[in-house]
């Protein structure tokens, strides 16, 4: 193969080859874990330590502002955090301000070991509240006036856990599991600014750079970054799960993307130096 032809062919590689390579690098770690070390970031450790230091009986809210599409990243995060919360003597409130939220929250609740915690006494799923930012503001102000029944149809006034959960001043920590940067911004405006609520953004990896300015300004307490954040949290709680399993696939697929960028650019530059730009 002549040199010029080789670079031209490399530049026009069949995308199906790339797709096949991606499938292979995603499947291999499921059967043969590589086990690359997962360093724990200061942001993830901050969340873990905050949960550890919460006084018994503290109220932690987990808002599932996510969707089925983002559940691949938000799911492992939610399970890792809920596993930790359920090990502590805390009161856990699950709610959702996006339509999929409560169903996904319920899915996460079904996956975790609840120990002796009882529904309605130690934890509750309040279901979906429509209204976007308005609903979030109303939630922070007075939950009992906003929501009358939980996800299972029980009157929340009859649930013991809700006796001490009335508004945002009762929240020791507030988690949002989301793919939406706007959801985090709404909590900054409606919960952190008026009530100084500690908002933790458990967001998909793609959204992290947009949330960092709020974190650096102290408006977001901390950030759990995508499935890698879930893996870090699982290691801290010594309960490896989906996040750790996904981390090898994440590493190998990232390497493949970087390799594609490098090879694609070598082919492009080689063609350009020959005065022949490759067709895209």
């Amino acid at each position, binding site marked *: 193969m002549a040199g010029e032809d080789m670079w031209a062919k490399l530049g026009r590689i069949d995308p199906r080859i790339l797709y096949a390579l991606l499938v292979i690098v995603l499947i291999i770690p499921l059967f043969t874990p590589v086990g690359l070390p997962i360093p724990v970031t200061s942001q993830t450790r901050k969340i873990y330590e905050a949960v550890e230091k919460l006084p018994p009986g503290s109220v932690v809210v987990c808002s599932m502002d996510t969707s*089925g599409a983002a559940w*691949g990243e938000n799911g492992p995060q939610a399970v890792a955090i809920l596993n930790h919360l359920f090990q502590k003597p805390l009161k856990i409130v699950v709610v959702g301000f996006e339509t999929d939220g409560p169903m996904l929250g319920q899915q996460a609740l079904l996956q975790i070991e609840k120990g002796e915690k009882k529904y309605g006494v130690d934890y509750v799923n309040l279901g979906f*509240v*429509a209204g976007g930012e308005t609903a979030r503001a109303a939630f922070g102000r007075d939950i009992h006036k906003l929501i009358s029944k939980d996800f299972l149809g029980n009157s929340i006034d009859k649930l013991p856990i809700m006796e001490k959960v009335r508004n945002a001043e009762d929240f020791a920590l507030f988690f949002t599991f989301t793919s939406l940067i706007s959801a985090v911004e709404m909590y900054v405006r409606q919960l952190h600014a008026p009530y100084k609520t500690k908002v933790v953004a458990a967001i998909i990896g793609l959204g992290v*750079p947009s949330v*960092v300015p709020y974190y650096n300004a102290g408006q977001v307490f901390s950030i759990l970054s995508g499935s890698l954040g879930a893996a870090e949290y699982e290691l801290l709680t010594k309960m490896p799960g989906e996040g750790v399993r996904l981390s090898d696939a994440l590493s190998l697929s990232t390497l493949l*993307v970087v390799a594609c*960028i490098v090879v694609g650019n070598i082919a492009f530059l080689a063609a350009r130096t020959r005065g022949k730009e490759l067709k895209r």
Partner: protein
Amino acid sequence: MSVLKRREIAVFLTALAGIAVIADYFLKVPTINTAVADLLRWGVILASFMLLWGTISMLRVHAEVIRKKTPNQWYYSVWLVFLMVVFVAVSLIGGLAGPSSRWIYDNIYVASSSTYYSMLGFYMISASYRAIRARSGEATLLLVVAVVIMLMNAPVGGAIWEGIPALGKWIVDVPNTAASRGYIIGLAIGAVILGMRTFAGRERGYLG
């Protein structure tokens, strides 16, 4: 024109509600605080009603497509309406948290939704090969930053070179934060101006 249709009334009510919500944020006046709490609940009730309205509207649109047997489209509408009716019926009979609606949701909706989202991975791998090219100095800088951030977000980044996570964190913390703050502040000022124009009745696009 009827007095009830006059736009001034809508503008006045909008301004009144908006100013009350802003006043509530800064003032501890029980009358305002209670009124605004009610306003927020009204907002939530309206949003819930709009969801129902949206569902009815969607059913009407698809019913029309089915009635006209629009080529290459009507059978998708039949499928959509069928699934909607099935899911609503199952949820009403067994409850939203019941095993049947859970099964449909977990095994059909979440699975297909995740699959659809995962397709992005294939577009990304193709784009990384064909589109991310060092065509100029700026493009090269973007390419290098993209690679560093990608490697930072995977354990393999630190394994390749331990400086990658630190470099990535610096990029996110410093240049990214600086640029983001610029547009966040710009957006906020724009929102304040838009709010003032709306209260003054000079912005009437929302009235339709």
